[in-house]
């Protein structure tokens, strides 16, 4: 049979418009299916939800308002009818200026609708889905519920389903759909051999359990999540977000429910006691483009990022274009501008800033702990808990020892009290010999005066006065880790009341100020503890100033919790109330920079400040100890009080002093705990960070931005986070933040989330969604092809705990999915786009799978899962052509890295891999839920000429020669099966065989050319193979890799 003739008939008819006019009107008009799309697209702009644009005070989106112009049953009396049919151009609607026009079919539909009573329905997608009973069919067909719905619809239209596809076709189809990779010949053979009823189900179960499945799903989610390895705007610098990508792979692999998948990615950081992995998940909303442009206005971009998060959340979970209401109330869907900004408020408390980095990640971010180390981390966490427990126990058990000591100590009260234990650095700054000064706690460190500074008389002996460029540089001091307690302080004497500067520090300003300092700010003591300023840091500043021109003792204790609450600032032995300027430290403080007294490494000189007696301790000193250092020894007076007269607080102070300074077992336990803490911090010290979501500690107020402009907030009303009124309210008890929002999205009566999700899964398997506009379920979106089936699947998905694998399995197990994709004459005539599903889906593989398929069949594919992006072959110069100042060069990876699956290809968003974008891969600068699917000459050039494909062909050829048998016939069959899973039809085998014979003759005559073909690609060929023969087979293999049926799943 030849199909061309028939297709041309349809096409001719369609292009002449005949069909539009002759198309039958449905017997019963359904508002949502037939009328709403017409009104929405042509009328709502001026007669819809947006008050600002509304004309003639008429709304056609609400039945109550539209009754002014519609008389049910009577088109002739309806103004609406009169206006859309008027011959007066000034009267006729849609108005001239709108550039909209109704065709005769649409007008006929409206007429019939009015005749039938002009019934309105709420927009279908805004009403929670219900599972209707399975339709009863007249014929026996089908394997599960999906088929019942499909069959019913087919029968209404007088169609029959197609037969099941041949087994070879089916296994290739389902393997490509579920994993993005082709089945191996062994897998095909096993399936063919397996005559059990559940042979196919076994294949499906096997596929769903592979990492390849998780990778395939992740690749789709990377489009949705606008994932990239670069920052997009301006310099488009590198970033590391692959830990987030690997989180997604793991989530799909472990079949995390869509509910948790949602909650963790949108709000993992807000889950109480969030785990490392839950925080990594929130990278979802850090994947958007960020800028580093010199002239930017930070707030403009910060708002832009929030806008992106709202848009992405709307498109992906709700299937709504919320972003339309950024500047004005939505023209089509019932979302007011105010509601938009209330939704915006969920994301508007973001801690990330407008200006981000061109060289790596920007805060908030996390030191990434790879899965392998996570177990170790857990065990160390447990050890620390145990150590704490032991310390508590020792505190109890030490009572008798303490009592004994207290009695003895009370007798020796005149003696100088013991120095607080744990001193690891102590600079009295009394004298400088050859510019060197002593560290009494550790003789190995070298402290040397650099530049000009004055030695003056100090609190005790000498002291250092910072002037000009002087400071003391100390080598060999190791800071504690961020998760370890330590304390530090000294005496200071500033000239000015508002003195500023770093009294001492160990800090790398160049690496986001990593390190720490003791700090005077406007005369008040404070401290910075920084992993990365300022998203990952603690900064507190006391609320009282040091005296001028007098000695004050300033001191800081930090308890290793990473919180401002665990940080205390003392002035003259008294704890100060403090302001918190950064609150959240969870990364190393280590820097290669030296410890410096009098400044940071290169800045924040403590100018005109005198400094004396610098001390650092490796634990939290108790208040009494700090007071002792400040010269008000409170221990001695406590000891002087008779034990029975001491208050509980006094006893506690003495006890803590005893434990930390005197008690051997307690001190030993402390030091053991410190060892575990060091080990734990070491785990986190890997260079890899990943960006995460973080909120500010004080809520940033949200205002409506007039015309969507960051510069024009409407400040008369602060907007609280909330969800649009036409959707269900927030669940009871849900927090009013992102976490609550995520819980709201996954509440069981949400009309959109589950429908949108199952529709997306459907589109992965069937090539298009049941709602074709996969990211628009609003009134401008498409009417679902199978509304009842969609609802049934959506409810089923929720009922089964949002189980993604189960949902996909249900779809691929259906007889609908398993049909042959052969297009018969009748089917092409009746349903050219396969809306009714009387045949199986057939469509081109997405770009990544075209490449992965070639790598897989050639045996080159490197199956390593996860890790940083890789750089396979790419034509030279592409990065440099667009790069800022022209010095960003692409450097191809070598070795087996270049044969990884395409989802791992490094994604530079200003110049993404061309062999992917030519096959419709989006740049991923914005969320893209569904890709277009085109068929272009440039695609042919990729699969014919890209070295990756030429090299793959050479390896397919090698396999044909080594594994395919001895005769050309056998080898052709092997090769063809390798790439299609089927045996070639005789005609096809003949074409390939004669191609081999012809090219063999040619290459025999031109061995040089054979050598050239075989030299393409980094991998080696098996030199034992005859070159001419190998080259000829490589040509055949290249033809195979370019066949329509190879780059198509059918």
């Amino acid at each position, binding site marked *: 049979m030849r199909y061309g003739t028939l*297709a041309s008939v349809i096409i001719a008819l369609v292009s002449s418009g005949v*069909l539009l006019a002759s198309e039958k009107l449905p017997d019963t008009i359904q508002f949502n299916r037939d009328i709403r799309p017409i009104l929405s697209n042509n009328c709502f702009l001026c007669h819809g939800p947006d008050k600002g644009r509304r004309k003639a005070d008429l709304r056609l989106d609400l039945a109550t308002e539209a009754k002014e112009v519609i008389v049910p049953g009577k088109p002739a009396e309806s103004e609406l009818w009169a206006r859309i049919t008027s011959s007066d151009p000034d009267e006729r609607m849609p108005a001239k200026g709108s550039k909209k026009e109704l065709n005769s079919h649409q007008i006929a539909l409206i007429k019939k609708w009015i005749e039938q009573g002009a019934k309105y329905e709420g927009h279908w997608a805004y009403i929670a889905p219900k599972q209707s009973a399975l339709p009863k069919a007249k014929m026996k067909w089908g394997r599960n519920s999906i088929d019942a719905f499909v069959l019913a619809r087919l029968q209404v239209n007088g169609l029959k389903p197609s037969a099941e596809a041949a087994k070879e076709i089916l296994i290739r189809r389902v393997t490509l759909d579920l994993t993005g990779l082709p089945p191996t010949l062994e897998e095909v053979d096993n399936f063919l051999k397996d005559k059990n009823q559940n042979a196919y189900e076994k294949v499906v179960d096997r596929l769903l359990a592979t990492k390849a499945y998780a990778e395939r799903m992740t690749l789709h989610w990377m489009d949705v999540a606008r994932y990239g390895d670069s920052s997009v705007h301006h*310099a*488009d610098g590198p970033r590391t977000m692959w830990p987030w990508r690997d989180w997604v792979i793991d989530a799909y692999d472990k079949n995390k429910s869509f509910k948790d998948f949602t909650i963790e990615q949108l709000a993992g950081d807000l889950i109480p006691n969030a785990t490392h992995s839950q925080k990594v998940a929130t990278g979802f909303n850090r994947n958007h483009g960020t800028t580093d442009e010199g002239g930017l206005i930070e707030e403009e971009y910060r708002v832009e990022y929030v806008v992106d998060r709202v848009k992405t959340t709307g498109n992906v979970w709700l299937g709504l274009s919320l972003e339309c209401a950024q500047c004005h109330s939505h023209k089509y869907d019932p979302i007011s501008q105010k509601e938009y900004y209330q939704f915006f408020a969920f994301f508007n408390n973001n801690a990330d800033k407008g200006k981000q980095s061109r060289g790596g990640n920007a805060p908030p971010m996390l030191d990434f702990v790879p899965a392998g180390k996570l177990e170790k981390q857990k065990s160390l966490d447990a050890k620390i808990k145990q150590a704490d427990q032991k310390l508590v126990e020792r505190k109890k058990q030490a009572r008798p020892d303490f009592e004994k000591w207290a009695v003895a100590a009370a007798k020796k009260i005149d003696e100088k009290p013991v120095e607080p234990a744990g001193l690891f650095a102590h600079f009295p700054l009394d004298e400088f010999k050859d510019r060197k000064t002593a560290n009494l706690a550790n003789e190995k460190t070298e402290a040397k005066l650099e530049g000009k500074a004055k030695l003056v008389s100090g609190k005790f002996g000498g002291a250092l006065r910072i002037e000009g460029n002087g400071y003391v540089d100390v080598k060999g001091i190791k800071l504690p880790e961020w998760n370890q307690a330590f304390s530090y302080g000294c005496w200071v004497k500033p000239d000015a009341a508002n003195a500023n500067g770093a009294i001492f520090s160990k800090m790398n300003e160049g690496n986001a100020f990593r390190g720490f300092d003791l700090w005077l700010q406007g005369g008040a003591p404070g401290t910075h503890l920084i992993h990365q300023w300022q998203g990952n840091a603690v900064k507190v500043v006391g609320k009282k100033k040091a005296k001028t021109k007098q000695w004050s003792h300033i001191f800081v204790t930090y308890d290793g919790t990473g919180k401002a609450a665990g940080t205390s600032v003392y002035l003259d032995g008294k704890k100060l109330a403090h302001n918190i300027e950064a609150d959240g430290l969870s990364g190393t403080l280590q820097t290669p920079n030296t410890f410096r007294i009098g400044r940071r490494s290169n800045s924040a000189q403590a100018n005109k400040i005198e400094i004396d007696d610098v001390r650092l301790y490796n634990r939290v000193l108790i208040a009494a100890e700090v007071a002792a250092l400040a010269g008000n020894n409170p221990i001695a007076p406590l000891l002087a009080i008779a034990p029975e007269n001491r208050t509980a607080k006094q006893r506690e102070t003495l006890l803590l002093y005893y434990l930390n300074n005197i008690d051997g077992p307690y001190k030993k336990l402390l030091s053991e705990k410190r060892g575990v803490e060091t080990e734990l911090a070491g785990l986190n010290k890997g260079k890899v960070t990943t960006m995460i979501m973080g909120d500010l500690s004080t809520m940033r107020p949200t205002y409506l931005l007039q015309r969507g402009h960051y510069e024009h907030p409407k400040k008369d009303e602060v907007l609280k986070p909330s969800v649009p009124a036409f959707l269900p309210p927030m669940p009871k008890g849900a927090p009013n933040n992102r976490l609550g929002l995520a819980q709201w999205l996954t509440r069981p009566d949400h009309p959109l989330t589950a429908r949108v999700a199952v529709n997306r899964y459907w589109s992965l398997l069937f090539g298009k969604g049941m709602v074709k506009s996969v990211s628009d379920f609003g009134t401008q979106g498409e009417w679902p092809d199978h509304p009842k089936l969609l609802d049934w699947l959506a409810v089923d998905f929720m009922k089964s705990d949002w189980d993604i694998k189960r949902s996909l399995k249900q779809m691929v197990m259906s007889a609908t999915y398993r049909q042959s994709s052969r297009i018969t004459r009748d089917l092409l005539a009746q349903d050219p786009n396969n809306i009714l599903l009387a045949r199986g889906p057939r469509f081109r593989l997405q770009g990544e799978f075209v490449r992965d398929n070639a790598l897989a069949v050639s045996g080159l594919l490197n199956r390593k899962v996860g890790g940083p992006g890789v750089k396979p072959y790419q034509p030279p110069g592409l990065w440099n052509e*667009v790069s800022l100042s022209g010095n960003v060069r692409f450097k191809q990876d070598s070795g087996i890295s270049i044969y990884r699956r395409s989802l791992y290809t490094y994604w530079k968003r200003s110049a993404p891999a061309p062999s992917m974008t030519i096959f*419709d891969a989006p740049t991923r600068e914005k969320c893209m839920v569904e890709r277009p699917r*085109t068929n272009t000459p440039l695609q042919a*050039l990729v699969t014919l000429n890209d070295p990756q494909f030429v090299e793959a062909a050479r390896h397919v050829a090698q396999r044909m020669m080594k594994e395919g048998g001895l005769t050309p016939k056998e080898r052709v069959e092997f090769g063809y099966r390798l790439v299609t899973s089927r045996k070639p039809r005789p005609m096809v085998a003949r074409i390939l065989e004669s191609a081999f014979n012809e090219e063999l003759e040619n290459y025999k005559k031109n061995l040089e*050319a054979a050598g050239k073909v075989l030299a393409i690609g980094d991998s080696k060929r098996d030199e034992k193979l005859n070159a001419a023969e190998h080259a000829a087979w490589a040509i055949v293999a290249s033809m195979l890799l370019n066949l329509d049926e190879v780059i198509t799943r059918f």
Partner: protein
Amino acid sequence: MNPLEENELQMTRRELIFNSAKCLGGAALGSLMAPGLIAARPKTNALGGLAGVPHFAPKAKRIIMLFFSGGPSHIDTFDYKPVMRSFHGEELPESVRQGQRLTTMTSGQKSFPCVAPMFKFERKGKHGTWVSELLPHLGAMSDEITLIKSMHTEAINHDPAITYILTGTQQLGKPSFGSWISYGLGTENQNLPAYIVMISRGSGAANQALYSRLWSSGFLPSKHQGVNLRSGKEPVLFLKDPEGIDRSLRRRMLDGIAKINEEQFAEFGDPETQTRISQYEMAFRMQTSVPDLMDVSKEPKSVTDLYGKDAAKPGTFARNCVLARRMAERGVPFVHLFHRGWDHHGGLPGKLPKQCRDIDQPAAALIKDLKQRGMLDETLVICGGEFGRTIYSQGKLTRTNHGRDHHGRCFTTWVAGGGFKAGYEHGATDDHSYNITRDPVHINDLNATLLQQMGIDHERLTYRFLGLDQRLTGVEGAKVVPQLVE
């Protein structure tokens, strides 16, 4: 239009490859179809674009856009006033600045001294248009061009501004101008891409970044994306047959592939298979047509003389101008030349002359060349950047040196050919070339006007995406500027 409809559109395009014997009656077939299955199916025009496009008789058939990336100074090139000399070095009056937002590169500056151009100006052409000495060749063409001095944009930084002017909005993800043309009009040359991009580096300054999104098809099918023709051995990526595979072998391979694909079509009946066969054929033809396009060796010496000596060097702006003309001759509807290096925050007096030298003679030559071939009337040549630059100095103003910051409130763009008025100046700015005083033209207004010359109503060339009928000229109500055209 959504991707599925695009698929349908391709089906209609396949009409060409089917013979139309054995027709069934239209009515009979119509009754076979279930209601709702084929609603609102788009159709194609003769060039593979949308049916009904052009919407009306076009004045121009193609666009050549010369885009100077970085923001050329309008003050130092075309928008000069002698009075500037009188307030050189004086503070920018607040009455001029009017609290307008500045980029954060200069918003912290304490002083905003005005700078008169450090170049000579002469009046050129019948209207006495002021043109900088840096642009002698273009100055001589002033009677051929429409000079729009009142262009404006809201964006003040490169990335958003360049995205805005080329896609109609500062948000990412929208198709570029050329993609819209490819999508709407199609192309008469099936052997070359409809939208071609070429990039050259500026010799005067460091180059601001570009992004492939600037020629991306956004949500339109990727076949409408700009194809970057490069200056090396492989002007189109993956164009060259691999080493060891000659043309005749490639021909034999394609024949074999086509035969097997025909078998596949016979078995499955998917029209997409037929399309693939024809796309492989087009790829084969492109492998010849592109090198032929790029081979300027047969251009007479008079032509290379016209474009200047740089035209001998592949990858230069001059060479790209020669190629642009060759593409115009071959029916490519949108040619997009990027020239980089126009971002002069400092050292402007040293950098700008080099940049101008790169483009002056070739751009003027392109107009002359098109005109002498009788093609200027049907070709729109647009020339400009994403914004202009400030009258005040960025950084310190010295006797010989200064910089200028970004300025979106007004800048100058010129257009030649395609029905634009020859020898016409449109709009005006104040003495400081800071604010527009007459006839503002928003960047989207100009794009709307360009589309009109191409026979396109900018409000009707739309594509449904995320619930909205998207278009090149944004949602803010861009308007055609009738004064610009004949």
